[in-house]
């Protein structure tokens, strides 16, 4: 929609009217997909969230019952807690890793392209089932993590079977896939005028001060964008967690992410109404967090050129 509006505007000023309908006509396949595959199902799920529906019999209107039941669902509470911890750990750590690597990779050196590709590669395969299976092997008893920690005297056993560490394993998997935010950070870093650094250096600012006072404010829009995107992604992680926890949030519910619980309620218990209510609750929570982040960003994010207006 937004694209259509911006594309249409300059033409209209030129006076050639009538292309609007044609543009929409060209967009029809996409619009049909949007309405039929995204908007329709979303509205259907909103309706279903107020019903009792098990896929086999017609949905039965129950009002807010599903939402009320969530409060009494122990596993819902567990899933919300696990997801909260996961998002709070995975998002900042992933962004930190992405920024650190991006700062190293913006330098113009021979063969830097190779390094950039190498660091980006995990993001291409990281969400796959294959990697999740490898992850299980890495974190088993006698696996890489167990041996490495054992060598320095830390005996935790394989994290995969230890409820105290199993979530950390998923966080590490998320951090490892820092490629997408890294590329965006690199684009941001390349936009920072080098004169600023040169001037600061002349004034005697050290590396930390230059980072704190120049880099961070100059790329703050990029940081904000990445933070927003990665937070939303973190809430939605599913496939890798499904494989690693064998679909059940094992061990002892320690990796029971919200999406896993939702999937289980829908496809093991066939409580489609309840699962829809969970989906909408998640949507609202993520929406609220996004709004909150936009609010905070007004005072914290610096857009270059804004002051001129």
């Amino acid at each position, binding site marked *: 929609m937004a694209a259509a509006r911006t594309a249409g505007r300059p033409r209209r000023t030129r006076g*050639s009217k*009538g292309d609007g309908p044609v543009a929409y*006509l060209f967009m029809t396949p996409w619009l049909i997909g949007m309405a039929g595959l995204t908007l329709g199902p979303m509205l259907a799920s909103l309706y279903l969230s107020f019903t009792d529906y098990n*896929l*086999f019999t017609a949905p039965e209107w129950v009002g807010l019952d599903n939402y009320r039941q969530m409060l009494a669902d122990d*596993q819902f509470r567990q899933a919300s807690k696990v997801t909260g911890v996961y998002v709070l750990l995975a998002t900042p750590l992933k962004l930190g890793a992405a920024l650190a690597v991006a700062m190293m990779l913006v330098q113009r050196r021979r063969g830097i392209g190779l390094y950039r590709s190498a660091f980006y590669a995990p993001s291409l395969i990281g969400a796959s089932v294959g990697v999740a299976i490898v992850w299980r092997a890495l974190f088993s*008893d006698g696996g890489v993590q167990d041996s490495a920690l054992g060598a320095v005297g830390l005996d935790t056993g394989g994290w995969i079977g230890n409820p105290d560490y199993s979530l950390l394993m998923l966080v590490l998997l998320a951090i490892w896939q820092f490629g997408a935010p890294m590329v965006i950070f690199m684009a941001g870093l390349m936009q920072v005028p080098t004169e600023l650094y040169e001037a600061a250096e002349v004034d005697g600012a050290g590396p930390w001060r230059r980072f704190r006072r120049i880099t961070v404010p100059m790329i703050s829009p990029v940081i904000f964008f990445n933070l927003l995107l990665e937070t939303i992604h973190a809430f939605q992680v599913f496939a890798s967690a499904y494989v690693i926890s*064998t679909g059940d949030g094992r061990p002892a*519910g320690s990796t029971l992410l919200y999406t896993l619980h939702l999937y289980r309620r829908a496809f093991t*218990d066939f409580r489609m109404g309840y699962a829809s209510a969970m989906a909408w609750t998640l949507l609202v929570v993520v929406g609220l967090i996004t709004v909150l982040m936009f609010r905070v960003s007004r005072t914290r994010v610096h857009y270059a050129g804004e002051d001129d207006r």
Partner: protein
Amino acid sequence: MTARRTIRSTAAALAALALTVTGLVACGDDSGETTIRFSWWGNADRAAVTQQAIDLFESRNPGITVEPDFSEFADYWQKMSTQAAGGGLPDVLQMDYSYLRQYADRGLLLDLGTQSAQIATDAFRPGLLDTGVVDGKRAGIPMSANTLGMFYRPDVFEQAGVEPPKAGWTWDDYHRLIGEVSRAEVAEGMTGGGDYTSQYHFMELWLRQSGGSFYTPDGAFAFGPEVLKQWWTRTEQLRAEKLVVSPETATQIDPKGAISSNVAATEISWDNFMARYIGEGPDGEYALAPVPSDDPAVSGQYLKPSMLLSVFSGTEEAEAAAKLVNFLVNDAEAAKILGVGRGIPATTTALSAVTLSETDQKVVEYEESIAALISPPPPPPPAGAGSVEQTFRTIHEALSFGEITVDEAVERFFAEAQQALDAAK
């Protein structure tokens, strides 16, 4: 000029649209003969033999075409439930015992009693045929059967110098034996057995040994909190002394069996898991003994259909579908092709036709050895039994990690499992 360009671009857009739309509707029906869809779960090996059997069926029944379709177990049930929601199941579908009632209760399965002209029912092994009956209707025809047994590793018992399980042993014997093997420390991480209280099937077995059951005929729980507490307390001592497989290990080896992961010398399981355990390794041998029981005359065992075949109630080709069902369970040649990949065949005709490997022979011999102990099966589990099973296991896991007490576990089970049953009604 502008007008003409508009027309031209409109036409182009319409053409594009037309292409998309025709792409969506380009599927018609042009065959004059009967086509039936047959869906089942399984792997590529099963797909190859099933296709061979289908080819034979088609050559014997000219005019009937079978369209096969298969997926993994979990995906299969998602697919079936989605198709059921859309109002169209395949004509013939492989059915699992725990889903039978759920599908039958919704009127989705044809009463195969109406197709008795097509399906011969005289060769079924005792007590098996009626496991497919829900509320007086023949909703499924068993294709293969299994029963519970005690798997053990003779080599580990020998090394540990402990006498292996044998007919007539009790639960106390089992607990003592677990302790003895674990303390012998034959190999690193080797125990006498896992915490068998994790699975509701074994609790059902234990309940049946004293004349009880897990579900009442109308699908409620047939036991109270006290009984469940007793069940989960049985192995508390073994857990505390770390004589059973630790929960950490149990999580890691999943979905493999404990006995095939070199961490347990015994495991109660369905006897057709023999082939699976051998496939999973290790190099050890597996033997089967009867399940423990405090009353040697009552073992609580029954022949459970490991797989059934059902026909969709909305099928337009009931006769052809029933023919296929009959062919798959009763035909000697089909049995020879299909082998025992789906479990030990449900009919004696099929059983005598299949070529049994040494492994299969062990399972068949085991079933023959306990034939006198087999009692009538419980009614098919209620809708929602699948989630009850999962809830049972999840709560037991929290218990075995020491995150909750037995009392809390019992309370949680009744709250969550009841919700699962209510939701499935």
